[in-house]
């Protein structure tokens, strides 16, 4: 792997981490529950991106399983939270 690609990988990972910190600020600050839920959803997305990039970095496709799992099921917790905010009840 060329230094270019490894540099790009480090850059991308760094970006995701920085973005996560920014999102974390929102997660902690709120102000409302919907902000926090959205922030959590974004964190999950960042996590998924990290996994994908790691997959490229190590040329190992096992990382994709986890990323896929986030893509398919990651929305469930934030959706449930959103529904909870909206209805006060997750399963009616």
């Amino acid at each position: 792997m060329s230094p270019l690609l490894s540099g790009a990988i480090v850059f991308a990972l760094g970006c995701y981490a920085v973005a996560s910190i920014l999102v974390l600020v929102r997660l902690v600050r709120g102000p409302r529950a919907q902000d926090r839920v959205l922030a959590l959803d974004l964190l999950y997305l960042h996590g998924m991106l990290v996994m994908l990039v790691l997959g490229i970095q190590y040329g190992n496709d096992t990382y994709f399983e986890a990323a896929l799992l986030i893509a398919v099921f990651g929305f469930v917790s934030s959706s449930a939270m959103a529904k909870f905010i909206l209805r006060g009840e997750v399963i009616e």
Partner: protein
Amino acid sequence: MTAQVPFWVEVVVSVLLVLSGIFVVISAVGFLRLQDFFLRMHPPALAYTFGSWCVTLGAILYFSMQEGRLQLQPWLIIIMLSITVPVTTLLLARAALFRRRIAGATDTPPPLRSRQPPGMP
């Protein structure tokens, strides 16, 4: 099995990764600094779309070249993401509207009415 990837591929993948990183940071910046919740709902889409598409594309390219045949599995990720993401955003937007209305916020439009009286065909 793992062949050396041509340099041009690495360049393309690198560009995609950098772009993804930049867009993700922009989306996070927007999400953090915008004032209103509905405004804040827009920037995350950058990460959901461009941010993840770039990486996925990079991965497809990289692995396909590496293994010498089309590797579409990463593609599944963006398909699944596009299918599932609306659920959260839709519910969140609805919840935000609801809570604002309950709180009596003035900048929030009133609930939508059906055109026909409810229940009529």
